[in-house]
């Protein structure tokens, strides 16, 4: 039996959601403000969006970000899924070790990770750009794919796997025909989350960007440091729209809504 939620509970929850979304909504609202200052509302305009499309620096940063995000999502999906699946066969000790390693990139603060990678790639004389960005982004993406695929694998009835093997399927066949189709929705959701995380990363990207490969968030951050301008509002609102498209897409694929 669950406790009933009181009127005050509903009120508190509603208030919380208002505060949670107020900052987001005000960014979108002021992107349509004709005045360049938030001090006054002088009417609706789309000028700031028009200005965006003629900005070459933003277009270039956007291209870099998309390339990095897609490559990161692909790399992370493959490596994360592979690791989750092989966890079914390795010895228990190896499995524990893998779990521990997967948590590592998530518990070291991003600044420390970024700085350590900066030193490392510098020592290797690796040019900073798409490659360093993808490698570093995979660091916080692979663990999420691994965790989400493993959670799905835990739901799968082990007897299906065993009977497939009993009936003479090779491990490779079994992975291809049974496991991968079952975990596919989780892989897609995780890959889309990777896409969003990579497109959003500021901290690690600051250290990994090369002179001609600044990512969009790094560029936006430098714009924001100057102060509030409606152009930034417009850019952020467009990104928000893109994000919602990604979420809608992932909902469409998984169909069944699942949380946690």
């Amino acid at each position, binding site marked *: *039996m669950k*406790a009933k*939620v009181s009127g005050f*509970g*509903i009120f*508190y*929850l509603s208030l919380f959601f208002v505060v*949670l979304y*107020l*900052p*987001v*909504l*005000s*960014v979108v609202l002021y992107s349509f403000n004709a005045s360049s*200052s938030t*001090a006054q509302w002088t009417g609706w305009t789309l000028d700031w969006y028009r200005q965006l499309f003629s900005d070459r620096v933003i277009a270039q940063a956007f291209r870099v970000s998309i390339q990095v995000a897609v490559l990161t999502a692909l790399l992370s999906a493959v*490596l994360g899924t*592979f*690791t989750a699946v*092989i966890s079914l*066969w*390795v*010895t228990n000790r*190896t499995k524990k*070790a*893998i*779990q521990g390693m*997967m*948590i590592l*990139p*998530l*518990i*070291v*603060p991003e*600044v*420390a990770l970024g*700085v*350590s*990678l900066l*030193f*490392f790639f510098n020592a290797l004389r690796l040019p900073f750009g798409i490659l360093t960005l993808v*490698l570093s982004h995979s*660091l916080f993406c*692979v663990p999420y794919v691994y*965790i989400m695929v493993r959670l799905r694998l835990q739901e799968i009835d082990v007897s299906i796997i065993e009977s497939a093997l009993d009936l003479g399927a090779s491990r490779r066949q079994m992975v291809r025909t049974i496991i991968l189709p079952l975990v596919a929705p989780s892989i897609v959701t995780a890959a889309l989350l990777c896409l*969003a995380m990579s*497109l*959003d990363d*500021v*901290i690690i990207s600051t*250290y990994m960007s090369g002179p001609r490969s600044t990512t969009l*968030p790094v560029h936006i951050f430098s714009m*924001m*440091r100057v102060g*509030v301008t409606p152009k*930034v509002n417009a850019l952020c609102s467009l*990104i928000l729209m893109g*994000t919602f498209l990604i979420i809608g897409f992932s909902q469409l694929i998984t169909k069944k809504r699942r*949380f*946690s």
Partner: protein
Amino acid sequence: MKTWKRNLLAVPILVWIGLLVGIPMVLVVALSFLSRDHLGNIVYQFTLDNYRRVLDPIYLRVFLNSLLLALLTGLITLLVGYPVAYITSNLPPRRRALALGLIMLPFWISSLLRTYGWMILLGNAGLINNVLLALKIIDKPLPMMYKFSTSLVGTAYMLMPFMIVAVFNSVDKLDRSLLEASYDLGASKWKTFFHITVPLTLPGIAGGFTLVFIPALGLYFVSDLLGGGNTVFLGNLIHTMATRGRNRPLAAAFSMGMIALVLMVLSLYMKASKDKTGEGLFQ
């Protein structure tokens, strides 16, 4: 298949983590003991100077600022987020799904956008000041930006969903019959809450606190945009030292200090939640 052959399957992930976390971290440790010349080039000479400087009162202040920010962020997200998780878990199915969706959605929304939103709300010409001025409640704008508390609000806001999800997972597993038993035995609502609910959801609280505390130490772009650099935090300092400051050994020493703080919190978490591997943090 033989055991060692099966374990060979783990090689790709070992290489990946060794290359991207293992070696770089060893490099940071090594660098933190090296010196540099006046141009910022590394000089291969062992020194403890960097650690001595970490303990310098000026830099110790930075440590305390970060520790305070991270602790208060944990506290605020817990006080605000716990009731949210608790209420959500008690909602009827459809409303509950909606509330959960609204809680998770910010994970997908750009963190820069969410920080920028507070700049628009809190600025001198911002939305809150505009409304208060229009209502004639104040006659000149309230200065709300570029303070320690502004950074705190931004950081807590950014990390709130982590706390709520962690607490929610714990609250949702709570066996409600224990609460009924407590009421039947004559305990008040508050007594039941503090003696039954809180101890049983402690793993969620500890997990949420850890998940919020760690990033709070390093979210330098939030304190940069909202705090305006008036209060220096560890993240800002490491960032400046590693880039414009051209003092990599010192940046390395500070990174070690930051990691030490993280390890402290993790060990506390493992004690409080009895989660030996830290795996429960990400389930």
